[in-house]
């Protein structure tokens, strides 16, 4: 990402798989961190620590990032961001997406855990197309 500074906008949509135990609560955790200005920090931590994403672990990660734990826990318990997560999931379903990650690079769909090189290739194509 860093090599593309200023040229790329990255947008995250949540699509928690409903039959995995901690998918949903992790999405909630990332958005609870967003409320406290630490979305990307939490986002990276969740990637790093996956699949250890039970509630106690999530609270531990929030502590590591120096978040307000009371507010954070409340978010998890009340599923404060259910609307956003469900909106994203509904959007994914409406496009017949069934696997994660799925990327849309200027709208071009790339499904699955493809090599980073492949994503870079498409990004380069898009940057070239814009230059013309």
């Amino acid at each position, binding site marked *: *990402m860093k090599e*593309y*500074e*200023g*040229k*790329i*906008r*990255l*947008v*995250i*949509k*949540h*699509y*928690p*798989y409903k039959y*995995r*135990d*901690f*998918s949903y609560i*992790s*999405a909630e955790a*990332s*958005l609870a961190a*967003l409320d406290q200005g630490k*979305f*990307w920090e939490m*986002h990276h931590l*969740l*990637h790093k620590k*996956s*699949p250890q*994403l039970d509630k106690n672990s999530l609270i531990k990660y929030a502590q590591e990032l120096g978040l307000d734990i009371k507010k954070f826990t409340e978010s998890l318990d009340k599923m404060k961001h259910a609307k*956003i997560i469900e*909106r*994203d999931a509904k*959007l*994914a379903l409406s*496009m017949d*997406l069934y696997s*994660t*990650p*799925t*990327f*849309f*690079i*200027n*709208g*071009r*769909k790339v499904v699955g855990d493809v090599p980073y090189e492949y*994503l870079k290739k498409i*990004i380069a194509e*898009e*940057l070239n197309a*814009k230059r013309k």
Partner: protein
Amino acid sequence: MKKLFLLFIFFSLVSDLSAADIRYNIPIDDSPSLGPKNAPVTVIEFLDYQ
């Protein structure tokens, strides 16, 4: 024969369209994002942390 040829052209056009040129228009709404709004490339990632 000519009909067959036209049919062939038709299907090769259709398959081309479905393969590479579809661009999905996805609403960004208030989803978390990094980078300038007017960046030449926008990457939208649907993810599951687990």
